[in-house]
Every structure is written in structure tokens, then in C-alpha cells.
């Protein structure tokens, strides 16, 4: 609570009023679960600036871009151990396997290169497709490519699609996240749906994503520090030691939902794609650094 109060107090003037509005929005989200009575949304770009301001204040001295590394941006001890893991990165095999999959010809003789060029294209996703009126993620685009070339789509919870996207993420390292600002009504609706998801309380524990990653970011649950929302999307797929495997961002979303005692959604469901759209938009400006390692 003090967090919101403080943030509000510090940004009361001029462009800050928008910022205050956004921080207040999170409070409203926590207050009412962002029901339909929620106040009008600020512009997405104002949201992004507000989030950056929030974390700059909270993690003073830590550049926003550093949050691409999650808690390792500010937890020195954990960072050292984490960097040691990078000496022999456990995601490397998945990247190699992804490369093999990438180069296997599809049913009509085309390859993924016909859809994705050299494969360094992750920063183009997600985007809002105005014709289809939905958020297109990299995983969706991979399956679109397969259908175009006579193949069955891959199951989103399977090993092959996560390896393909690990290879593409690896090739795309260093690209800057640059999601186009949602402008059209349907694009804004998708963005706001993701934003609402992020600040809605759910599950037996009654946590919103923002409870831990906005309101309590930097604090500890037991011995674990809570990471900032910015950067949450930069490093996928990720090899989680808990999973002993690489997994997708949506798998992580589902795990988070389960952890708070809520029903998870399916990978690539509209709910999770809209959430990815919102989170990636507000992370604009951060570099892509997948695949990565996390506990």
C-alpha cells in the first residue's frame, strides 16, 4: 500500500498526472479486480512510462534495461551463481535441436526460412493483426507457417515448438523489443484485456500478477526476491531448473496462475496472448536475451 501511496505522491504534476493515474489504476485493479466499472485507461505509452518510472524509483541505480535479467538485475549473490550456470548453458541442446527442426523441409518442400528468413525475427512478435483482429505471437506464426506449407500445427505444450522458438530467440538476441503502440479499437481492447488480466486478483491466494511484480517487486517471499514486470517477456523460452527443460512464457504464466490457486489458461489462449501483448508493449526498449536460465 505504501508503495502506491509513495508513487502517487512523487508524481503529482503535469505528465505525472497520467503516471499517477496508471499507478492508481493498479490500485483500482487491486481494489476491484478491475471490474467493468474501472476508470478509462491511460494511453499504452503512458502506461509504459509509468512502469519505467515506478521501477526506476524502486530500484534506484539500476537501469531499466537490466531487468531483462529478472531478479539477477538486483540480487548480487544470486547473480553470481546464475552467471556460473551460463558457463555451460543448459538451454544449448534445445537451441541445437531447434536449428535442426528449423532446417527440416516442410511437407511442400519449403522450409521455415520461407516464412522467417534467417530466423532472427523474434522482435517482430507479438503484434496485433488488424485483419484477423487478434494478437499474433511467434508460436502462432510458426504454426501458421506450417499450415501454409502443408504441415499439421504443433501442439503448443510440446517439445518441438519450444525448441524452434528457442533457436529463433537465440538468433534474435540483442534485438530491441519494439511492439507498435496499439491504436485501433480492437488492438486497444486486446492490450487492455492483457492489462486487466495483469492487475486482476485471482485464485485462493487472491494475488494479481501486479501484487507481487509491481507492488512488492524487489521484496522477498521467503528467500526469493520478486522480479520487476519489465523484462518478464525478454528471455523466452527459458530453461527452468525446476522444469529441467526449456519452456515457454505461456507455460510460466500457467504455472503462476496455478501457484496462486487459480485455473490456468491454455498456452496461446487469447487470454495469455493478450497478456503477452501488454507485457511486451510495456517492455519496449529492452533487449531480447533468450533463451535464458531461471530457477
Amino acid at each position, binding site marked *: *500500500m505504501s508503495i*502506491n*501511496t509513495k508513487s*502517487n505522491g512523487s508524481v503529482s504534476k503535469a505528465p505525472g498526472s497520467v503516471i499517477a493515474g496508471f499507478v*492508481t489504476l493498479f*490500485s483500482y485493479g*487491486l*481494489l476491484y479486480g478491475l471490474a467493468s466499472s474501472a476508470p478509462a485507461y491511460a494511453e499504452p505509452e503512458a502506461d509504459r512510462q509509468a512502469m519505467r518510472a515506478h521501477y526506476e524509483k524502486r530500484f534506484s541505480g539500476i537501469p531499466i534495461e537490466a531487468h531483462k535479467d529478472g531478479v539477477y538485475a538486483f540480487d548480487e549473490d544470486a547473480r553470481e551463481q546464475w552467471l556460473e550456470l551460463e558457463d555451460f548453458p543448459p538451454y544449448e541442446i534445445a537451441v541445437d535441436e531447434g536449428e535442426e527442426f528449423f532446417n527440416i523441409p516442410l511437407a511442400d518442400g519449403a522450409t521455415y526460412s520461407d516464412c522467417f528468413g534467417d530466423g532472427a525475427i523474434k522482435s517482430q512478435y507479438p503484434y496485433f493483426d488488424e485483419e484477423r483482429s487478434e494478437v499474433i505471437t511467434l508460436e502462432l506464426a510458426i504454426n501458421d507457417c506450417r499450415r501454409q506449407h502443408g504441415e499439421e500445427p504443433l501442439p503448443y505444450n510440446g517439445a518441438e515448438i519450444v525448441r524452434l522458438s528457442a533457436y529463433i530467440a537465440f538468433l534474435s538476441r540483442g534485438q530491441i523489443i519494439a511492439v507498435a503502440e496499439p491504436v485501433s479499437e480492437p488492438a486497444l481492447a486486446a492490450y487492455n484485456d492483457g492489462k486487466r488480466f495483469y492487475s486482476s486478483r485471482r485464485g*485462493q*491466494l*487472491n*494475488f494479481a500478477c501486479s*501484487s*507481487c511484480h509491481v*507492488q*512488492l517487486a524487489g*521484496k*522477498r*517471499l*521467503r*528467500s*526469493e526476491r*520478486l522480479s520487476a514486470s519489465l523484462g518478464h517477456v525478454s528471455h523466452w523460452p527459458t530453461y527452468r531448473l525446476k522444469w529441467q527443460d526449456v519452456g515457454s512464457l505461456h507455460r510460466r504464466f500457467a504455472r503462476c496462475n496455478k501457484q496462486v*490457486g487459480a485455473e490456468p489458461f491454455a498456452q496461446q489462449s487469447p487470454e495469455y496472448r493478450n497478456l503477452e501483448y501488454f507485457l511486451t508493449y510495456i517492455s519496449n526498449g529492452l533487449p531480447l536475451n533468450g533463451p535464458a536460465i531461471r530457477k
Partner: protein
Amino acid sequence: MKKLLSGLLLPCLLFISTFAIPTVRAENPPTNDLERGKAIAFDRNAGNCLACHAIDDGELPGNSGPPLMQMALRFPDRDVLRAQIWDATVRNPNTVMPPYGKHKILSDEELDLVVDYLLTL
């Protein structure tokens, strides 16, 4: 709402918790019940209070919530503490604390055991 909270309610709460005189509870529950309360409070699959709060000799506590100390002083009225654990959002809609009673994370009996334990801190 926020203004009301920070401007009026919060100082009131602080005043109450800081200066009110603790009432003496009728009787202390038996020690074994206090131990049961502590075990529930510490258990990761029950209260898991240590996830957010430093408590007594609990190992590796989180710091997302305030340390739980001087609880009898802070909560002279047992019912207020119980209500806080039952659903802390009543007093503070922005709190992250899970509603242990309302969402049946703890049973009524477990909740009472935890309250009695916390009041010994």
C-alpha cells in the same frame, strides 16, 4: 479513497496500534495449542506466514509484510487480529495478504490457533 486512507484512516490505525492499552485476555491457551498454532503459521502448506513476515525464530522469512512482533500490543482486541487474517482486504483493499478465512486457506480452528500463537509474540 487513497487520500482517505493515508490522510485519515492510516494515522488512526497507527494511533490505535501504537497507543491503545492492551486488554488482558481471559486465559492463555495450553502450550501445546500454541505450538500447534506456530506449526500452522510456519507450515509452507498452511499459514506459510514466513513467506512474507519475519516471525520469532522462523528461518528465511520474507520481507514483503511487516515483522510480526509485539502483537498483543498492536492488536489489543483479539477479534481485530482474527478479522485481519480472515480477510485483510477489509481494512486495506490494496493489501497483498491472502484472505485466509474467507478463501478457506485455513479452517476456523486453525485460524484460532494461529491467532493465539501470534498474540504471544
